[in-house]
């Protein structure tokens, strides 16, 4: 079962399989096709974990033998919001679990003059305030763009406790920064790295996720 190393941080169980998958995607000699496949495997695990936090309601159905079965049913609607571009790599994983899920996009880039991340573009479902939101961004380093993206969601009326921030790698510093701004958002992650280097990159990290997933 997943653990909660910090408040509102849900860490996938560190099994042989999961740590083995991370070895593959971290290794710079891994070819892109493998990088994509094994990242997708981890993303799927993150999505499944995130979905587990959604509430359900009791539901009774009739089985093929005619006997009733008292189970549960999904409650509430969800949507995915990816931070362009790397976050888009996680959309397929979400779709694999929720076939017709709505997906919003947010583009945030560093302003070249001030070096501060700035919102460039957003396109979100109209009824997003009624939905549970999976915020998708594979790397949580300083948390700068994730904080802005979450601001956007909250401004659109999404309740913070209905937001789940899914990432593959994060670090203590990023978690602290992000939770200082949005303490009620649950972070779902697969790995907590040592920290950041001077360039504010994750260490040991895996490089630029978007580049490795889409380009290199």
């Amino acid at each position, binding site marked *: 079962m997943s653990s909660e190393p910090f408040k509102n941080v849900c860490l996938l169980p560190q099994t042989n*399989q999961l740590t*083995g*998958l991370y070895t593959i995607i*971290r290794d710079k000699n891994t070819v892109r096709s493998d990088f994509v496949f094994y990242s997708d*495997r981890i993303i*799927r695990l993150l999505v499944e974990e995130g979905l587990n936090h959604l509430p359900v309601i009791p539901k009774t159905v009739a089985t093929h033998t005619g006997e009733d079965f008292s189970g*549960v049913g999904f409650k509430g609607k969800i949507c995915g919001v990816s931070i362009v571009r790397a976050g888009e790599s996680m959309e397929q994983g979400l779709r694999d679990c929720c076939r017709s899920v709505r997906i919003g996009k947010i583009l945030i880039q560093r302003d070249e003059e001030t070096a501060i991340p700035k919102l460039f573009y957003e396109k979100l479902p109209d009824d997003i305030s009624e939905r549970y939101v999976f915020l998708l961004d594979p790397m949580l380093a300083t948390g700068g763009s994730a904080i802005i993206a979450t601001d956007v969601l909250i401004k659109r009326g999404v309740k913070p406790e209905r937001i789940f921030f899914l990432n593959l790698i994060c670090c203590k510093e990023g978690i602290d920064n992000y939770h200082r701004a949005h303490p009620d958002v649950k972070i779902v992650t697969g790995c907590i790295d040592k920290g950041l280097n001077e360039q504010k990159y994750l260490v040991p990290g895996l490089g630029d996720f978007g580049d490795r997933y889409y380009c290199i």
Partner: protein
Amino acid sequence: MNNKCKDNPTEQQLNNKPPELKDKKGGHKLLTISSNSKYTPPWTTPYIIGIGGPSGSGKTSIASKIVSLINVPWTVLISTDNFYKPLTDAERKKAFNNDYDFDEPDAIDLDLVYKCVCDLRAGKKCEIPVYSFVNHNRISNKKITIYGASVIIIEGLYTLYDPRLLEIMDLKVYVDADLDICLARRLSRDIVSRGRNLNGCIRQWEKFVKPNSVKYVLPTMNNANAIIPSFNDNRIAIKLLVDYITSKLKRKSMEHVQELIRLGKTEKIRSLMDHPMVYILPKTNQTESIQTILLNKRTKLNDFIFYFDRITTILLSRVLDNIPVANYKTIITGSNCEITHCTNIDFNMICGITVIRSGDCFIKSLKMTLPNVPIGKLLIQSDSFTGEPQLHCELLPPNLTQYKKILLMEAQVINGASLIMAVQVLLDNGAKLSNIDVVVYAATETGLRRILNAFNEEIHIYVAIMISEKDLRMGRNSWCLTRFIDTKYFGSE
């Protein structure tokens, strides 16, 4: 009526025997009842029938009549004609001149016949040679592969000759015919069907067939339990024989079902919920919701397939969580940091085996999880009447021993019989018990208990849902007692 039974206890006598004893010479036991006994898979004790008699007496036609009348899947008919020894060049020349003695016991490789039957009896694969009468040699690249049998019928001249074969036969039948009639049959068969000439046939008969029949074949009548007339109307004799065989098979199958029930009951009743070898997928909001969708009879086919694939993907991922680490290595990450002691997993060390057809419901999720995984298949079907599993074919990846993890998949376990057989087949093919992971979507606790008991509690089992014995006793969750998953998944409702 010219058939007589001897040395054969009546049905009444047999019924009075204690159930664990088999009616076999040599005191071979089908089932033992000591408390630490292992499960004996059913196909290791097939019912073996020998049919002997002189050439041309009609053994083949009687054997095939019996096969069709007992109508049991898994009946294997072995003709000793396949086991003629390969000839040397000199012998072959003689054979073409009708000068080679095919009719003495030595011409047939009875050692190999015995080995084949023993292999079948032990549940191993058995390869039957194919003999060409045109070349008088075994066809080197052609063999008939047989795996497992409920009933083995051995038919041929010297079936009742070799004492080792006689020892393992449950029923010995001699087909009796006057040699005149045998000659007449042989002539018409050899001349009409095999294109031989009359003189050659007669010479062969006088020189070899008749003397050998008198010297070696006729005395084997003494080894028989039943003698059947070959001429006129032998329908009643065959009917009696078939009735007898059927009653024996029914009894054997009942004993087997009893044994399965016993396996489920021996252990001091301890819930499998916390058994160290049984992993049950933890209940979460998602797994519970998916379960509800799968059990809802109104769920549409495409939804059923989608959610079944999803839950099996979750389950397979849990199975792989415990994959052994191949080694630890040092890597340089994409951001040029060095990490030592990284877990290195070799996903090529895994292979999947599905039990057709319900295990095939796992193929899509398996391929999603391990795209290049080799997949083997076993066709095992439970006899719908007796519940006894029967192995129809095995298509396994070569060299099973090379895999560190063998995922054996079946959608449902009800009584556990087919999975017990499947595991045994993998073991027979060299797989190590500790490397086999049984992966099942829905299982009854009783079925899992049987599998555990059959393999000394040394086999790992992963299930998404287990229905407890208590639930079933209380009449709850009886949906798990019918095979609905593959029926629905493949749209064959």
